[in-house]
């Protein structure tokens, strides 16, 4: 694996030394080392493999080949900012920081440098307001959507009422983990459930006191906002105290194979949000196998195809490629700039027909992006782990969040940010337009 990366780095270096050719630069701020690497590696591999597929199968986007580069952040905010400083002069079309902490640091910098950023399912939720956050996009769903989707699912499960229910939020004690608290607090006031918030220090290998508290408080449901080892530890602790797994629901960052496999049979029945489909039953995987894995071009081993985090990386790359196509169409050129890419992202339309034509029928929701909504519909599904078959099964269709409430909160937060940073909310004109 390391050798492949070395070869890739060499190739990138050689490309950089060659005469300037038309190319579309898609960097990846990945983390293949450190405590969170098990989640970062498959995401980075999925992202890279899809871009390789576009080069190998389609000859690039609109005839212009893709250049990939990777910068290791180790899920560390300072290193993420260093990566950005190194990349900003290389015309990166879109940045995917894969960390809420890094995202918060890069929002003002990317605004200033006019480089679009896509934070899919993470980052600053109020970036949905494209009039304030012109350069940040967080479609198809964000944390507040996720929290609301879980509550809507629980409402469905409880005949429309959560009165007198107790719900515990077990969260990673970080900017990421604290994101759903405002939404859940508002929803608890509206829906009448009691909210109990329990923090876990990073990385979260020791949670006995938190789970003793859960055992004592006896909540009806536990919602988890975790990442990395915190997830498997929490699921193990839940199994230890015999908490009913079907009442334990994680965010999409707490719902991968790595979170449940270490727990074995104890994880059976655990649920998590899914912002996209999983498994290999999508035609695009045949193409990935043929054009990427079988040709020895896969970023990883090729064995991760269809796993949750790989699928998410692939989905992020797919959305980036589709936005680049829109940008090329808008501007009538193949070689687009970061500013043009932003236009493509701001006018992206994903339909069910498009998803089917890409070999991903039903994989992600249909949505449209516009200046006032950079966040899509916020829809997500619920998946449940089958420990016997060692696979995730989708148990619901797309569930919509309470967008009225979310947008109200988005406006409050984003306008406060605009006031603090002297930003006049406005829709950006198209680049060169």
């Amino acid at each position: 694996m390391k050798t492949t990366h070395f070869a890739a780095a060499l190739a990138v270096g050689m490309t950089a030394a060659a005469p300037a050719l038309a190319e579309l630069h898609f960097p990846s701020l990945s983390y293949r080392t450190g405590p969170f690497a098990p989640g970062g590696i498959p995401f980075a591999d999925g992202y890279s493999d899809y871009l390789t597929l576009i080069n190998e199968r389609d000859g690039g986007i609109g005839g212009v080949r893709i250049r990939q580069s990777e910068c290791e952040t180790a899920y560390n905010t300072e290193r993420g900012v260093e990566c950005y400083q190194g990349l900003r002069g290389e015309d990166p079309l879109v940045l995917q920081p894969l960390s809420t902490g890094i995202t918060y640091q890069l929002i003002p910098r990317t605004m200033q440098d006019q480089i679009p950023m896509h934070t899919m399912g993470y980052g600053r939720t109020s970036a949905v307001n494209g009039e304030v956050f012109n350069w940040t996009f967080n479609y198809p769903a964000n944390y507040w959507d996720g929290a609301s989707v879980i509550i809507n699912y629980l409402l469905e499960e409880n005949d429309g009422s959560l009165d007198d229910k107790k719900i515990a939020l077990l969260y990673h004690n970080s900017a990421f983990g604290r994101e759903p608290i405002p939404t859940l607090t508002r929803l608890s006031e509206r829906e009448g459930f009691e909210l109990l918030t329990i923090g876990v220090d990073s990385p979260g290998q020791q949670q006995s006191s938190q789970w003793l508290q859960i055992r004592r408080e006896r909540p009806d449901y536990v919602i988890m906002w975790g990442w990395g080892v915190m997830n498997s530890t929490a699921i193990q602790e839940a199994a230890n105290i015999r908490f009913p797994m079907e009442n334990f629901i994680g965010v999409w960052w707490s719902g991968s194979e790595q979170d449940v496999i270490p727990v074995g049979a104890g994880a059976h029945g655990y649920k998590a949000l899914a912002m996209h489909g999983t498994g290999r039953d999508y035609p695009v995987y045949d193409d990935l196998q043929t054009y990427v894995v079988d040709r020895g071009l896969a970023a990883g081993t090729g064995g991760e195809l269809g796993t949750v985090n790989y699928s998410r990386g692939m989905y992020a790359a797919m959305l980036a490629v589709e936005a680049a196509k829109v940008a090329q169409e808008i501007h009538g050129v193949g070689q687009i700039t970061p500013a043009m890419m932003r236009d493509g992202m701001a006018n992206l339309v994903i339909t069910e027909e498009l998803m089917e034509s890409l070999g991903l029928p039903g994989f992600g929701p249909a949505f449209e992006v516009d200046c006032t909504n950079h966040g899509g519909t916020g829809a997500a599904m619920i998946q449940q782990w089958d420990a016997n078959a060692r696979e995730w099964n989708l148990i619901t269709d797309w569930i919509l969040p309470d967008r009225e409430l979310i947008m109200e909160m988005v406006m409050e937060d984003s306008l406060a940010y605009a006031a603090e940073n002297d930003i006049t909310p406005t829709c950006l004109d198209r680049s060169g337009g």
Partner: protein
Amino acid sequence: MPIEVFFAIEVAINGLMAGVMYALVALGFVLIFKASGIFNFAQGVMALFAALTLVGLQTGQIPFAHLINAIFGTRMHHFGWDLPTIVAIIGTMAVMVLLAFLVERLVLKHLVNQEPIILFMATIGLAYLLEGLGDVMWGAEVKQLDVGLPQGASVWIGDTTYALFGYDFFIDKLALWAAGIAAVLVIGLTLFSQYTRQGRALRAVADDHQAALSVGISLRAIWVLTWSIAGFVALVAGIMWGASSGVQFSLSLIALKALPVLILGGFTSIPGAIVGGLIIGVGEKLFDFFFQPIVGGATENWFAYMLALVFLLFRPQGLFGEKIIERV
């Protein structure tokens, strides 16, 4: 008795169990520091490396498979057989002894008589090297470790305490096993150091390198022995931590849990590591229990260090550490 009191007792007992897990890591640090005066920054990574090797051997994984496949274009990942746990543990121990030998040959031998800070820096380098080696050898994906240790609530304790007090205490069976294993480990280490020739040599080196050398004790052999024992302790810690949350690279961060234990218990005392671990475990859990409603929880990481700092002010050498007296 009010239920809150029972709950506080339950938290304290579980804190003791967590403390045993911290002590398991701290023990490895103490062993190496005692014998060579080196603060081994790589101890946490050694636990990770040992656990990775154990799972790899157990599941018949081919070491360096990714590298081999990338160079030769093959697609080999597994030998196709599983090893019995005991054989895999013995195999892992052999790898840890080999590692100890290599550390002595390639690192320590060349740094004899250097300042302690140089040796410390060398162990930082070793930590990153081992982490990378573990990744290349066994891959970075999360692995399930099953050595047959039971997990989950002890039903017997729950039923008994319910019958006696009307409150069913929760104690994880894995934590009970960890406590038992730690006790056996400490007794074993004590017997080894008191009643064996190698153990006495080890203590002699710990007391005075020069005097030990003058009576014919091989410093290099003792270092290999010490690092091998620390490797064994790392394997035990890796098994216990890996069994509870899977074997993944965050396992190396358990070293951070051992630091306040060492500050509290002293860097040179095996009983200090145990008592320090127990104090930190109970302290952080009870603090979280009492102050969680006020400070909002997630206090465990900083509280352990705060407690250690308070101890530092009053007993810089730790509870059981040797007082450093320098004459001028």
